């Protein structure tokens, strides 16, 4: 006998027993266990997808963005609203340096600042979130900035004394708050800067901008209004790059910055005060609890109902180790089958939620679907099996061989 070989040999027997039960005349308990795990993992995938989506909505997301360069320690998930936190300095020069790197296709500095704007014509004022960008002849952060003056005159090589354009793009929510439309003029309360609305954004669907009071202007002009010119500050730099080495190279080159990737899981900062993180953790705990309860209960019932089989195996010489391997294999196999079904259900759920959000509330995708979610779901299913096996093992080792075989 080869040491350990019997434990390994018990594994395919365990898998065959599960599949045999499923295709046999009484698949009930096994099916219920699988459905239970699939429901739990499905919920886990959907809620985690929502959490990832929530984490992602905090950033200025766009298809062309692969990485976000943010101040070290900043929670990229809440960056647009964390305007009191740390900011990047020297962003114009940093952006130029990044653009000089041939691996980087584009880099765009972005700043956010809540500003109290006043529409004198309508006597309306409101705080709106001003997003400052360096206009390009293409989409930045999901917004077509080509209607802004791409010569970016006010910056004037860091002098902040060029021609003031006062150009502003307003989301429909901001336009409504300020009672403005295209060509309206608004001024900064407690300041003398003026802006003219070039366009009301009705096509900001990708970012959900039309529902949020946001206006977009030249970064340099926002810096001037917000007092960010001295250190040339912005909140983040959006980077699109083809090489995966870029994030680490950026972090090595610039002190005090960190780079978040497009991967949604990276957005889930392990911060207990973060709603997305709390959602993800809550979903994980709930799903684990539900899954473990289903698998442990159903496997326990199955083993109780088939104690003579356990007794037979022990009678013909199956050791405790082999019985453990067998029951563990059966439990984890059930959990994995449930996990596979659960991941599929979860992805369908995410598709449904996003479709529903788009059609009912005209919101962009609110839940994220990515391949890592499948790996996460299956990993959770395996964990469910590993935790749940304690009860089936308890039932197994409580079985009295002689009593069962003479019953």
């Amino acid at each position, binding site marked *: *006998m*080869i*040491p*350990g*070989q*019997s434990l390994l*040999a*018990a594994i*395919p*027997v365990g898998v*065959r*027993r*599960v*599949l*045999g*039960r499923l295709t*046999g*005349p009484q698949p009930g308990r096994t099916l219920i266990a699988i459905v239970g795990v699939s429901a739990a993992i499905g919920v886990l995938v959907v809620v985690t997808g929502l959490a990832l989506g929530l984490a992602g909505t905090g950033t200025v997301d766009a298809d062309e963005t692969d990485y976000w360069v943010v101040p070290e320690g900043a929670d990229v998930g809440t960056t647009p609203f964390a305007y009191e936190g740390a900011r990047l300095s020297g962003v114009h020069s940093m952006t130029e340096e990044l653009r000089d790197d041939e691996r980087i296709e584009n880099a765009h500095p972005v700043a956010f600042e809540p500003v109290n704007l006043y529409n004198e014509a309508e006597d309306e004022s409101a705080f709106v979130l001003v997003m400052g960008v360096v206009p390009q002849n293409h989409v930045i952060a999901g917004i077509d900035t080509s209607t802004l003056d791409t010569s970016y005159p006010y910056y004037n090589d860091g002098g902040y004394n060029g021609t003031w354009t006062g150009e502003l793009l307003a989301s429909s929510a901001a336009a409504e708050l300020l009672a403005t439309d295209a060509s309206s003029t608004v001024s900064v309360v407690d300041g003398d800067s003026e802006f003219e609305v070039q366009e009301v954004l009705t096509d900001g669907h990708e970012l959900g901008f039309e529902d949020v009071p946001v206006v977009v202007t030249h970064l340099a002009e926002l810096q001037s209004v917000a007092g960010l010119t001295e250190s040339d500050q912005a909140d983040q730099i959006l980077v699109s790059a083809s090489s995966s080495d870029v994030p680490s190279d950026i972090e090595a080159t610039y002190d005090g910055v960190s780079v978040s990737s497009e991967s949604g899981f990276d957005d889930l900062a392990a911060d207990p005060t973060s709603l997305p993180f709390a959602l993800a953790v809550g979903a994980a705990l709930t799903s684990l609890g539900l899954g473990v309860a289903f698998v442990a209960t159903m496997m326990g019932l199955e083993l109780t109902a088939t104690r*003579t*089989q356990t*007794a*037979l*195996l*022990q*009678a*013909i*010489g*199956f*050791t*405790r180790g*082999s019985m453990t391997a067998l029951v563990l294999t059966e439990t984890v196999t059930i959990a994995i089958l449930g996990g596979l079904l659960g991941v599929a259900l979860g992805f369908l759920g995410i598709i449904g939620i996003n479709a529903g959000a788009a059609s009912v509330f005209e919101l962009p995708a609110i839940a994220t679907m990515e391949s890592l979610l499948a790996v996460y779901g299956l990993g959770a299913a395996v964990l469910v099996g590993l935790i749940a096996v304690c009860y089936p093992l308890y039932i197994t080792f409580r079985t009295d*061989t*002689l009593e069962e*075989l*003479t019953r």
Partner: protein
Amino acid sequence: MSPEYTDAAVVCADVSRVYNQRQSRFLGTGADPVTALSDVSLSVSPGEVVGIAGPSGSGKSTLLHLIAGLDSPTDGKITVDGVDVSNLSGRQRTKFRLEHVGLIFQRFYLLPSLSARGNVALPLVEQGVRKRKRRDRAEELLEQVGLGDRMTHRPGKLSGGEQQRVAIARALAADPALIIADEPTGELDTETGNRVLEVLVQDHSERAIVLASHDEETLAKADRVVQLVDGKRVE
């Protein structure tokens, strides 16, 4: 142990089994002790088929369980294939059964989710035999018991006689020195039972077989029959 038992496959020397013997000194006496077997001595030679006869409750099954290492005697000594079974730990008894004993039960006890071949191969799984060898051995045994065309059938698709033949093949899989059969034909009609017994006793050469039954026809297949009454051996 008597000298003439030296080469025997099974030796039982003054074996007794009393249930409920240990009682709490503090919590009362509980149920009365029950003597299931009392001072039974027996030897079985290699290649011999010994029948254990007796009415219900005579101790037939108890004796078989003790010889098979499924239970331990309260008194006496049992040696099987040179191994003293009387004082083995639970773990040692499990290993003993795997290596020395093939078990056949009245109710077959096949795993319904495995094929006939999978059921036969179970002892070999525990022995760590490689898959190809397990498969070959299981198929060889199923051919031997006349089920060559039923290898992939699950127990639910087999008749009672066929299921018992699968159980016999399973008992033979690890090539044990001793086969223990407890009422092997108890669930079968006479004709089927006879066929199953023929399979069981065919070509057993050096393998000892101890079978318990209250059926005359079954016991007729044995080389000799030991009679038990009220847990005692009677001549």
